[in-house]
């Protein structure tokens, strides 16, 4: 058993966050002085092979973050809701897969949510200064006061994770429970997970734990068992142990080789060159939208958005989410 993290303290003295502004390593649409010393990188390891799909993580996430998801309907599957939303930061995705080699049925259950990439596409795509930050421990967090709701974080995300709230029109996703981690706790989903399919610690520890798990899986005939820590995004601070690490996409469309769209990389260059202050946020958003969505939609929508921005109204979510390669629709 991975040693459980001791219970939280209710002592106000213990509630002082142990990381914050000074530890910000990246800030959207801004240049920051990197911290002199990087915090030890943290990671959440999701061992898909131990997961029983109980959704305790989903329940714990909703409770801890005080989110109210809609009561939906059944769509003929166990998944509910059917996709991530501004309130559902994490979601169990169920796949019934017949292994062609063994002819055995395997019920692959993957907890979807923010991967907290080392090289975060959302942050890079974000045109709004300080709406997305990355702490030097690896946590990528959204700052809602700075979010303009343009939805480019979704386009920039190789995992299609952030969602725009219909209420406050800003982007939401898993925070890795930065409020808990800041006081020495693990994320709420990790604490709840009945089978320790989710564990949390330093990234090094998590890699070591993954090795221990992979060894056990190989002994049970899962020759391709392995760790999912995709290098296309510089590695992630949420990693998976997969029985079939050679085929990530069988797990409800987990990208085989995620990477930040080259357009977003270009965009990063443009902001550097032009400078946010000169360009204006809405105009910058328009350029990115042009790059990502193409010229057909841009003019109308962006003009509208720009108008709304100048008049102080909220910006609606993008017309169509991008970045869903490999995902069944």
């Amino acid at each position, binding site marked *: 058993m991975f040693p459980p*993290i*001791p219970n939280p303290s209710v002592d106000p003295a213990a509630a002082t966050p142990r990381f*914050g502004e000074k530890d910000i390593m990246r800030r959207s649409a801004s240049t920051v002085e990197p911290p002199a010393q990087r915090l*030890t990188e943290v990671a959440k390891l999701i061992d898909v092979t131990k997961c029983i799909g109980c959704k305790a993580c989903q*329940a714990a996430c909703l409770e*801890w973050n005080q989110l109210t998801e809609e009561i939906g309907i059944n769509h003929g599957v166990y998944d509910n809701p059917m996709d991530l939303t501004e309130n559902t930061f994490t979601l169990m995705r169920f796949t019934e897969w017949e292994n062609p080699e063994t002819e055995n049925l395997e019920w692959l259950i993957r907890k979807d949510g923010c991967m907290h990439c080392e090289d975060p596409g959302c942050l890079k795509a974000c045109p709004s200064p300080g709406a997305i930050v990355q702490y030097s421990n690896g946590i990528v967090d959204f700052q809602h006061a700075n979010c303009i709701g343009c939805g480019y974080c979704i386009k920039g995300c190789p995992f299609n994770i952030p969602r725009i709230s219909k209420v406050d029109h800003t982007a939401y996703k898993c925070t890795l429970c930065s409020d808990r*981690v800041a006081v020495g706790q693990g994320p*709420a989903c990790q604490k*709840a997970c009945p089978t320790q399919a989710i564990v949390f*610690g330093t990234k090094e520890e998590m890699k070591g734990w993954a090795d221990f798990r992979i060894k056990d899986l190989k002994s049970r005939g899962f020759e391709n068992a392995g760790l999912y820590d995709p290098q296309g995004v510089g590695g992630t601070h949420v990693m998976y142990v997969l029985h079939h690490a050679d085929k990530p996409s069988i797990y409800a469309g987990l990208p085989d080789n995620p990477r930040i769209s080259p357009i977003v990389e270009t965009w990063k260059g443009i902001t550097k060159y032009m400078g946010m202050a000169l360009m204006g946020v809405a105009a910058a958003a328009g350029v990115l939208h042009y790059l990502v969505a193409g010229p057909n939609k841009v003019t109308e929508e962006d003009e509208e958005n720009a108008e709304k921005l100048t008049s102080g109204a909220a910006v609606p979510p993008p017309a169509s989410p991008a970045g869903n390669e490999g995902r069944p629709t």
Partner: protein
Amino acid sequence: MNMELSRRAFLRTSGAGLAGSTLGAFGFGEAEAAVAAYVKPFHLANTVEARNTCTYCSVACGIIIFSKGDLRKGEKADIVHIEGDADHPTNRGTLCPKGAALKDIVKSETRLTQPMVRKPGSDKFEPIAWDAALDKIARAMKDDRDANFIAKNKDGVTVNRWLTTGFLAASATTNETAFATYKVVRSTGMLGFDNQARV
């Protein structure tokens, strides 16, 4: 409740297998001065803890209830959060999807808050005072028992049973409640007395 002892003992045991893991090693030094509103504040600070047991299945996971207000000081206590008790040997702080949402059942919109009566043929519940409800119940029991109690069977054997009233006991009440219930029900001679274990 000896929380300190359990915490110590547990760490001693669980630390045995693995090198000291967890957050101490995350590179956080001593707590530093609070920083501007970057990380959301930890909302359990200044709450009161109570050790309890999950109300659902019989794994009986240890839970901690966090409240504003201290019952032990005679205050009203409003539950703000419930999570697993990492000191508990069975669940080690984990909870299932029901346990992780325990606060929702405590605060459910369908919790009952006052005695109600539905009159014969009526299509609604109406409020009734506790005393009036209990008087009505006791009277109905006495009348039924007096009318239908069987003191002797047809062979003249003393059987002292009451068959026209039945009682289904709960499955999530405490032993102590169960024993109080047992005494009261059995003393009346009622035989139609069962609990969820029958299912």
